Structures are given as structure tokens and as C-alpha cells.
């Protein structure tokens, strides 16, 4: 087997699975098939680490950067499919989801995986745009799957804001092509990333600047950067929880990845603007805004959605700072955040199913009534607010210390945002996890394995990062410039 087959497998398996799952009825069979397809995709993605790389084609390619994203994507996709088995079983029993929508749900899940993987392996800025659009559309449909007015409203809002983001990103892509065309020549070559990055130094800088602003706003909408984040909390709160988990853990990363690819292009042209300050500004804005907004949340899924905005802010800030250390920290933080946040959503999904509500005020004393879920949530929140010894502590520490070393003034708002968010989440956590139990005490039928697997990885990474992984990340951080 060669890597080019593995690349295709990462795309073909979800595509075929989507077609099959759209046709098959029955919960037992299809949910297992969904897990199987996700597992196969994960295996194909993991094999990319070991196989020799093919020459980049004009549509698909693989390099050190996108392997990290693909493997993370397929791993969380796999655990989400395992979690979704128990979650969806409960939704079917309570009648929130009918069998016909179940088919639709599974097909859309695999379509989304296909779209996200395609965005990661595409070597063509046009194809990447199409893939991001596909992934977005499939999640829009899943956010609205419950058909309640709130769900439809959330899906509509996500759809309209997402479409504007998509349109702006496309305009930026067209501008990029026009900048490339006089140098590279007409046709497909002027959209191939590996060709662009070699020749970008001679492109017209004025056109590149305008293009990057559009791309930053367009893909930044999908990353959930303030003030373009309005779709994100609704989409997280109203859709099925497995989708909230993949939205936070994966889809935000897809848009971030697209942004990073264009940042690398701009960095190679010295006459163009430095994308760093723009990204630092938007990142800090998101961090500060979201951390203050955390205090007013009444809905537990919304609470963690705002926490995702906060963390995407930190990540974009770190990549905006640039340099080997900050890039390393940003990359590590992205991986840790994806794992932690999706793990938290797995816990929250079961909690809201048991209690029959998402209102924070009506969920109390979880550690007494449901110790596994309650302590899992405690562990997740401790991880996400960046307490030692978990992985996010390490990545946030790296971000803060590298910022202090280079521009101490920027570190002040950064630390402020982190502390404010820490306070808000601890405040909410104590109510939810401890105290007098409130609400249903029905025993949980939950799948703890995906959740604890994520948290264990985060814990392990906080204590010890294996040297091969560190050198891999250092290498990628160097690529990012």
C-alpha cells in the first residue's frame, strides 16, 4: 500500500459509507456501520504517518502539517461515532429522532467527515473552498435535525452567516488566483498550493493583501472569531450533542487550517502585509469577549460553545505571534482543545439526556448521583481551564511564556482573558458537579470510554510528551514560519 492509496482511502471510505448509510434502515446495524467506517478511516489516516509520501498532485497532497490535522480529525470522528451510538439510542427511545432522520443523520455524519478530510488533503485552494462548503452544509443540516423552532432558528442563523463567510472566502480565493495568474500562468496551476508557495514571492503584494483580508474574514467566520461568531453558540446548543462535539473539536480546525495555509503563503511574500498582527488582534478580541460572556450563560452547551470561541482565540493568537515556540504552542493547544472539548461535550450530552434539560440551574450535584459522569465533567473542566498537570496547562503556559518573552504588553490581555474564563467555568462547575442533587437521578446509560480516552490522552500529554511527537510538532512549527 502506498500513501496515495491511503489518501484516497481517507476520502473514499466516508463517501461510500455515506451512500450506504443513507440507504440502510435500522439503528443497530447502521450505528455499528458508522463506527466501523470511522474506524477504517482512522486506520487509513494513521497509516499516512508511516508510508512514503507521493509527489504532490494538482488536487491532493500530504505533508507534515496536514497529517496532524487529518489524524486528529479521524480520531475524534471515530470517538464521536462511538459516543453517538449510545446518544442516538436514547434519542430514538424518547422519540426526539425518527428512524428516517436517523438514516439522514448517519449519512450526513459521514458526508461531513468526507468534506473535512477533503479540505485537509486538498492541494488546490479552489477545491479546499468547495470542501469547506460541503462540511459546513452537512453540519447545518444536522444542527436543524430536531425540527424544533429553536433548532431551525439556529440552523438558519448558522446557514446565513456561514454562507456570507463562504462567499467572502471565495472572493479572497479568486483574488489569490488573479495575483498568481500573471506569474504562474492561466489554468489549474495557479491554484495549486505547492506551486503557489514556491512562486508567491513575486506576486503583486497589493492584491495579496486584499485577498488575505477577505480570506481572514471568510474563514474567520467559520473559526468562530469575534465579532463573526454569532452562529456558533446557537449551532452548538440546538443540534445533537455528537455534532456539537465535532463542531467544536473538528470543524473549527478545518477553517483554521485553511487560514494557516494562506498565512504561510503570505509569509513567503515579504512585500505583503504581515498576517500576524491581524490574527493577534482577532484572537485577543475573541478571547476577551468570550471569557466575559461565559459569566452570563444559562445553558450548559452554550457555556462550552463560548469556551470554544475563547480557545480558538488563543490558538489564532498563538499562530499570529508566529515563531517556532508560539507555533508549537498553538499547534499543541489546538490538539489538546479538540480532545478536551469533544470529551466535555460527550459528558454534557449524557448529562442533559439524564436530566432532560440543558439549563445549568437545573443540573446540580452530579458527582453524588452520577459519579462517573460527574467526575468526568470535573476532569474535563479542570483540563479546559488550563490547570496543571493536564495538557492545556502546558500549551497555555507555552503561549503565555513565549508572549512574555517577545511582547510583554500583549501578554497582559492574554492572561486576563485566561483568568476571567477560569473563574467563570469554575463558578459554573461547582454548581453542576457538587452540592445538593437536583433533577432526575435515573442511572446513566452512557459510554464512558470515548470521554475518558480523550481525557487520558490530555492528561498523559500534560505529564509527558513523547520525543518523536515533539520533534514532529517542532518541524511543523518551523514550516508555519
Amino acid at each position, binding site marked *: 500500500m502506498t500513501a496515495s492509496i491511503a489518501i484516497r482511502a481517507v476520502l473514499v471510505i466516508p463517501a461510500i459509507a455515506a451512500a450506504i448509510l443513507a440507504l440502510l434502515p435500522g439503528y443497530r446495524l447502521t450505528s455499528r456501520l458508522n463506527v466501523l467506517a470511522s474506524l477504517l478511516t482512522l486506520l487509513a489516516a494513521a497509516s499516512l504517518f508511516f508510508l512514503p509520501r507521493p509527489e504532490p498532485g494538482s488536487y491532493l497532497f500530504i505533508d507534515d502539517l496536514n497529517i496532524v490535522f487529518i489524524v486528529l480529525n479521524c480520531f475524534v470522528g471515530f470517538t464521536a461515532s462511538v459516543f453517538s451510538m449510545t446518544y442516538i439510542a436514547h434519542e430514538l427511545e424518547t422519540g426526539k429522532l425518527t428512524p428516517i432522520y436517523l438514516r439522514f443523520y448517519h449519512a450526513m455524519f459521514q458526508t461531513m467527515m468526507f468534506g473535512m478530510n477533503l479540505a485537509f488533503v486538498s492541494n488546490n485552494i*479552489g*477545491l479546499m*473552498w*468547495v470542501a469547506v*462548503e460541503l462540511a459546513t*452544509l452537512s453540519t447545518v443540516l444536522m444542527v436543524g435535525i430536531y425540527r424544533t423552532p*429553536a433548532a*431551525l*432558528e439556529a440552523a*438558519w*442563523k448558522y*446557514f*446565513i*452567516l456561514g*454562507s*456570507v463567510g*463562504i*462567499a*467572502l472566502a*471565495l*472572493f479572497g480565493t*479568486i*483574488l489569490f*488566483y*488573479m495575483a498568481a*495568474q*500573471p506569474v504562474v500562468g*492561466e*489554468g*489549474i496551476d*495557479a*491554484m495549486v498550493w505547492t506551486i503557489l508557495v514556491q512562486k508567491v514571492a513575486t506576486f*503583486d503584494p*497589493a*492584491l495579496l493583501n*486584499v485577498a488575505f483580508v477577505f480570506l481572514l474574514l471568510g474563514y474567520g467566520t467559520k473559526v468562530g472569531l469575534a*465579532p*463573526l461568531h*454569532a*452562529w456558533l*453558540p*446557537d449551532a452548538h*446548543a*440546538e443540534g445533537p450533542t455528537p455534532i456539537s462535539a465535532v463542531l467544536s473539536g473538528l470543524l473549527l480546525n478545518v477553517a483554521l487550517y485553511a487560514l494557516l495555509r494562506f498565512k504561510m503563503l503570505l509569509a513567503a511574500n515579504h512585500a505583503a502585509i504581515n498576517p500576524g498582527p491581524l490574527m493577534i488582534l482577532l484572537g485577543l478580541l475573541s478571547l476577551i469577549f468570550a471569557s466575559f460572556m461565559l459569566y*452570563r*450563560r*444559562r*445553558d450548559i*452547551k*452554550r457555556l462550552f460553545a463560548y469556551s470554544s470561541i475563547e480557545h480558538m482565540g488563543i490558538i489564532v493568537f498563538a499562530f499570529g505571534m508566529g515563531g517556532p515556540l508560539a507555533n508549537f504552542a498553538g499547534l499543541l493547544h489546538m490538539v489538546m482543545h479538540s480532545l478536551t472539548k469533544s470529551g466535555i461535550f460527550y459528558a454534557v450530552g449524557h448529562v442533559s439526556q439524564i436530566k432532560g434539560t*440543558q*439549563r445549568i440551574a437545573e443540573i446540580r450535584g452530579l458527582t453524588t448521583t452520577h459519579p462517573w459522569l460527574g467526575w468526568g465533567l470535573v476532569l474535563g473542566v479542570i483540563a479546559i481551564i488550563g490547570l496543571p498537570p493536564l495538557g492545556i496547562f502546558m500549551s497555555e503556559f507555552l503561549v503565555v511564556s513565549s508572549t512574555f518573552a517577545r511582547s510583554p504588553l500583549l501578554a497582559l490581555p492574554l492572561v486576563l482573558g485566561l483568568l476571567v474564563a477560569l473563574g467563570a467555568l469554575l463558578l459554573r462547575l461547582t454548581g453542576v458537579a457538587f452540592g445538593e442533587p437536583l433533577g432526575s437521578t435515573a442511572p446513566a446509560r452512557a459510554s464512558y470510554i470515548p470521554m475518558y480516552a480523550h481525557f487520558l490522552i490530555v492528561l498523559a500529554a500534560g505529564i509527558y510528551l513523547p520525543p518523536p511527537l515533539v520533534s514532529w510538532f517542532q518541524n511543523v512549527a518551523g514550516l508555519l514560519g
Partner: protein
Amino acid sequence: MNGLSFDIAHLLAGGLVLISFILLYQDRLYALLNVFALQAVVLALSVAWQAFAQNAPHLYVTALIALILKGIIIPVALHRTIERLGIHREIETVVGIGLTMLVGLGLVALSLLLMMQVNVSADALAREDLAFALCVVLLGLLMMVTRRNAVSQIVGFMSLENGLVLAATGAKGMPLVVEISVAFSVLVAFIVIGVFLFRIRERFDTVDVGALHMSRGDSE
């Protein structure tokens, strides 16, 4: 490129910007749809002219899509939606028409200033097409934020998309133009179906924090 073909392309692209302005001050939904259909027809002409001038036959497909889908099918579908929802009299604007027009003028000036800075060595037609396209995109965005009604927001979005198609066809030899215009048509079709099926009347997108609190789950 000879003078005449340049002038015709220029005329059509300028026409699109002009129609974007006409869209801005419509205060009846039916009239809005008619003006939008006109814009789609002008866009189709402009794309067809680019196909002829660049000798790129695949662009005729894009022109045809623009003409049939956006010039005929979508306006008719939206017309029916408006009848069904009984909202043909309403148009709520957030700010006054006069102010909207002034902001629109400012946006056009901004995009022309921005694009004229771009290197002159680039094809002059492509550059000016791009300037016009940016105007149409920004005016479409302006329309989306100044209207509350879901139908007029969709019209704003489609007019924004017309600007994108203009930009894409102006970029010489750009690959995937047809595919992208098809992808966008699918997107627009989804939006129209969404409004039709779920009877969405009002817009929900806002960056207004006050409105966010009204959303489910966060009300006190």
C-alpha cells in the same frame, strides 16, 4: 483586447453595480424580486460576453445557469413564497434609505480606491471587473445587514453571489468556475427551500449582543 469588447464588458459590469444600487432602495418585495431578476439577466449577458471575448466556451454554462436559475426559477419561487407567507407589503429596513444609499456610495468609493492600487501590469479589464465585482459584493452585504426580512436577505445574498460570479469570470482562465457556480446554486437553492418550508420570516443573524440574550437558553 480591442476597444469595443472592453467597453461592452465595462458597460455590463457597471450595469451590475447600478442595479445593486436600485436593489438598495426598493421598498416592496415584488419590485425587489423583479430588479433582482434584471440583475441576473445582466450578469448572464456579462458572463456570456466574457465567454466570447476570452474564447472560453465553458463560461456559457455559467451564463446559462445565471439566466435560468437566478433570472427565472428563483424569482418565481420566491414570488410564491411571498404570496404564501402574505408578506408582500412589508419591507423593514434597519436604517433609512437615504443613509443606506450614502453608505453604499462610500463602499463603492472604497472598493474603487482599493482596486485601483493594484498593480497596473495586471490586465486592465480584469482589474476593473474586479473593482466592480467588489462593489457588487459589498453592496450585497450592505443589503443583508440593512434588511430584517428573510426574503430580502436572500436577495442580498444572491446579489453578493452575482458579484462573485462576475469576479470569477473576469479572472482569465480561472479553473473550477463552472463547478463553483453550480456549488453556489445548490447553496442558494437550499436557502430558498429552507424559507419556503420553514416559513422563516425574520432574520436571525445579528452581531447585536442584546439580541443574543433573547435566544433560547440564555434568557433570564
